[in-house]
């Protein structure tokens, strides 16, 4: 019989005054398997711990049960203590006789009786405890940052500055994201490009950063510290190793297609740079519009390229890389309001544009060189209506959530209109104005004072009358219907998760909420971690965000990743699921239960019980790096082939039995 030592703590008078600690120790001494029992004033104190260590030596104890406060309080203390002894630190059980006994019961006798029961249960479990060893896993000292918007740029720079390698992945041909499209940033109105392009250049030049543009994640394997990611480098038909970005090809390309960067407000060529300040500053060919790639005719760019960079035979390439940490910074996309709002014309009216289109219109490097000209006829608008909450706060047609940045974007746009078009009238339709941010309310206030007319009411419909667009709604403060005859209408549209982010989260095993945003490990206390160890999040992929919040979160996320990469190896809890392969029949019932995708079926060699022939059969395997030890899988296994170390089936059954034996 294994020798168990039981130590009953008085906790000063906390426990001792509410129940008979001596009687508990005495009863423990009589339990089968118990070789020694003692009580002491403060077991957690230095002398208390020494008392236990001495008893282990003196009585040759093999396991320890401590009846004291909650294990949530001192389990780690006593585990550390056992590390100094001959006993494995997992051969320890704690009977919670303080929080769940002494403090909650008034009857001395009954409390004592309960304490004895709790000790008996703990001893029964302790007898089945096994020595466990915390595993250490090595950590690959490289981080992958997915998404090259301002969040990804900031995170990659922070990680690289801390001395770790970072790979920044962007599916577009240039980093920069939405911030590169913006004209000015609220509330300071500094030029967006002026503050973001230096960071983009830093990324391109940083020795610790590898920039992969036109690239996507194809597959993810592994777990915290040890991810293997397959990256698809999409064919771009231009050899960037030798291209100098001279631009000769772009000038000669005969194709004109809509510029996505300018939100369809201008044309670009088939071989193109995303925008003038693109990083890398080299062109790519868009296979969907290139004549040569579509029907083999043309080839002008190849002819004019002085360095022979053009390669029409380019193909997607798959690269496998190892990472210790991953940061998701996939950002957002503006809602496709055309599909949601028939009453706003569903995209039929050229002069109903979204906020991002307005950013391009007002931007000096945009299609109109910064002149606000309405798309239909190029005239400067005299009356402009700005409509907020398009797709936001609209559970029926869009999303229930508030998109957070639009109130300020609307104020900024109103300001820019008044500023650039003196004499114009600007009406801002709103439901609420939300400006919680440093300097935000002041900015909104100034915009109002400058003459932007705020009308409280959601526009009911927009229709065309002659040359103008009539925005019909209610001024809810007046209680009267209003019809604003506008020359230009700007819709401040909702933010939605970036397209494809759902699939990426699936590859990573991260959860997303009903709207598709990444779910944090804890909304308040672990806001930049995901539920998957080693995968962090930054920016609007977690929910609508403005630039300051995005950058702050990116740095926080980078700090988490740096903390992980600073370690050479990390310990994982040994209390995880374990499979007895001999019992496992490979039915796969456990797999779908696991929230961490830690269980996979694998083939192992075996013998056919009938013929004795060598065969392969399926069994479940637990990935120790992914398993978090919840044990939900164990219930799905009818055989009991999968069990949870530290909380094995037989340990819990022994606890149950002990109560009635």
């Amino acid at each position, binding site marked *: 019989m294994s020798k168990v030592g039981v130590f009953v703590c008085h906790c000063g008078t906390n426990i001792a005054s509410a129940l008979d600690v001596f009687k508990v120790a005495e009863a423990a001494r009589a339990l089968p398997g118990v070789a020694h029992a003692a009580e002491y004033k403060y077991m957690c104190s230095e002398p208390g711990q020494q008392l236990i260590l001495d008893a282990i030596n003196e009585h040759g104890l093999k396991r320890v049960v401590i009846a004291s406060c909650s294990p949530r309080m001192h389990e780690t203390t006593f585990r550390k203590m056992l590390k100094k002894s001959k006993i494995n630190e997992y051969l320890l059980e704690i009977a919670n006789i303080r929080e769940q006994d002494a403090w909650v019961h008034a009857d001395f006798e009954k409390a004592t009786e309960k304490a004895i029961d709790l000790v008996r249960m703990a001893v029964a479990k302790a007898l089945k405890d096994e020595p466990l060893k915390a595993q250490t896993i090595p950590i690959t000292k490289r981080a992958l940052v997915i998404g090259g918007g301002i969040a990804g740029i900031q995170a990659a720079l922070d990680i690289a500055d801390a001395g770790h390698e970072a790979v920044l992945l962007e599916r577009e041909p240039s980093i920069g994201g939405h911030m590169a499209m913006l004209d000015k940033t609220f509330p300071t109105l500094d030029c967006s490009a002026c503050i973001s392009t230096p960071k983009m250049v830093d990324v391109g030049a940083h020795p610790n950063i590898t920039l992969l543009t036109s690239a996507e994640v194809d597959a993810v394997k592994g777990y915290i510290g040890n991810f293997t990611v397959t990256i698809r480098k999409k064919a771009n038909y231009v050899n960037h190793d030798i291209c100098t970005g001279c631009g000769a090809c772009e000038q000669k390309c005969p194709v004109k297609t809509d510029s996505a960067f300018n939100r369809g407000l201008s044309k670009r060529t088939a071989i193109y740079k995303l925008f003038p300040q693109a990083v890398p500053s080299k062109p790519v060919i868009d296979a969907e519009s290139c004549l040569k790639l579509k029907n083999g005719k043309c080839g002008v760019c190849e002819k004019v390229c002085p360095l022979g960079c053009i390669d029409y035979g380019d193909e997607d390439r798959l690269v496998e890389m190892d990472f210790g940490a991953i940061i998701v910074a996939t950002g957002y996309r503006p809602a496709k309001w055309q599909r949601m709002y*028939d*009453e706003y*014309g*569903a995209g*039929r009216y050229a002069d109903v544009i979204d906020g991002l289109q307005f950013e391009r219109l007002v931007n000096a490097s945009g299609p109109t060189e910064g002149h606000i000209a309405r798309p239909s006829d190029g005239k400067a608008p005299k009356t402009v209506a700005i409509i907020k909450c398009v797709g936001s706060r609209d559970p029926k047609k869009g999303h229930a959530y508030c998109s957070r940045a639009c109130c300020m974007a609307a104020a900024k746009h109103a300001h820019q209109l008044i500023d650039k078009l003196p004499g114009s009238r600007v009406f801002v339709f709103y439901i609420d104005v939300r400006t919680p941010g440093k300097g935000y309310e002041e900015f909104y206030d100034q915009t109002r004072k400058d003459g932007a007319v705020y009308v409280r009411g959601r526009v009911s*419909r927009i*229709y*065309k*009358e*002659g040359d103008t667009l*009539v925005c019909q709604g209610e001024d809810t403060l007046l209680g009267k219907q209003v019809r604003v005859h506008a020359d230009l209408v700007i819709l401040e549209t909702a933010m939605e998760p970036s397209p494809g982010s759902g699939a990426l989260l699936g590859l990573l095993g991260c959860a997303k909420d009903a709207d598709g945003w990444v779910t944090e490990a804890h909304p308040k206390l672990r806001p930049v971690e995901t539920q998957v160890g080693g995968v962090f999040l930054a920016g609007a992929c977690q929910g609508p965000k403005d630039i300051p919040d995005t950058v702050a979160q990116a740095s926080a996320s980078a700090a988490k990743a740096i903390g992980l990469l600073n370690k050479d190896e990390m310990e994982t809890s040994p209390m995880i699921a374990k499979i007895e392969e001999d019992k496992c029949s490979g039915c796969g019932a456990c797999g779908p239960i696991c929230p961490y995708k830690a269980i996979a079926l694998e083939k192992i060699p075996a013998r056919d019980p009938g013929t004795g022939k060598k065969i392969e059969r399926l069994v479940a395997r637990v990935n120790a790096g992914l398993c978090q030890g919840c044990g939900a899988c164990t219930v799905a296994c009818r055989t009991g082939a999968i069990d949870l170390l530290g909380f094995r089936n037989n340990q819990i059954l022994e606890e149950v039995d002990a109560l009635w034996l």
Partner: protein
Amino acid sequence: MKRYAYFPGCASESTAKSATLANEFVFGRIGIDLVEIEDWNCCGATSAHTLSSALGLALPARPLARAEADWPELDVVTGCASCYARLKLANHRVRADKSERYMVEKIIGKPYEAKREVLNFLDILSDPAARANIGAALLRRFKNLKAACYYGCLNVRPAEITGAENRENPMAMDEIAALTGAEPVEWGFKTECCGAAHQNDAALEARPLAGRILDNARACGADVILTACPMCQLNLEMRQGEYIRKREEKRTGKARFPLLDMVLPPDPEQAIPVLSITELLAVAMGAGGRRLALDAHFVPVGRLIAGALGGRESEAIL
């Protein structure tokens, strides 16, 4: 030949005479057989359900039950948006709610299971086969005829009853009209309520509704408004004179005795003709003057048709 059980609606025999004649002509030409529901009664329009929710369901349910008994395999079609709304609602509610079905069956004294669909003319005209037949039956082609297609609110709303996908900018009628060479205009009042329901009991309040529709159609360059409902048509047409007079009075500040409208037709420069979509189709299919009642329109349509078809062609019609 496609058959439908047909609910004509009360207006079909009086104010909507010209549309009714056109309907018969057009459906005859495109191989659609409308069998009139035996002894049908009024659907109750706005008044019945305003007074009593039970009556609002029972009145339309009676002819539907009759159609279901006589022609269980036929869907029901009606040419009036108001009738359509009432019939469709009754059909929907009887289907969706057992207790409503119980009530309706008790009141009408017949079984009614709402097995078939209730459709409007636009539904059956947009059927691909019907559309092909329309194309084949067209003999004349309009030129320079800008048409504002007016669907009316009740042909599309409420969506959960009508199943209409686009309630703001439906296109079915525009597409049908375009087959004749007419050019549908982009305008903003396709499904705005014209207020027909309250033209009697709240005339003062309801009349501006039609006015706004007329104004927008003109502002968007339309030569004609096309309708898919006799109520809408009558409402947009009959009181145009009064509306234009009031608008002029407001502009000039000079009042005129209302009953003068009786003798003075609306100013042709300001008035806009209103045709039912089937009238447009009938003319394009070569219907002669005797087959239609184009002269019955409050706003004369002669100039419009002459302009769009050319003199000789139009003589045969008018």
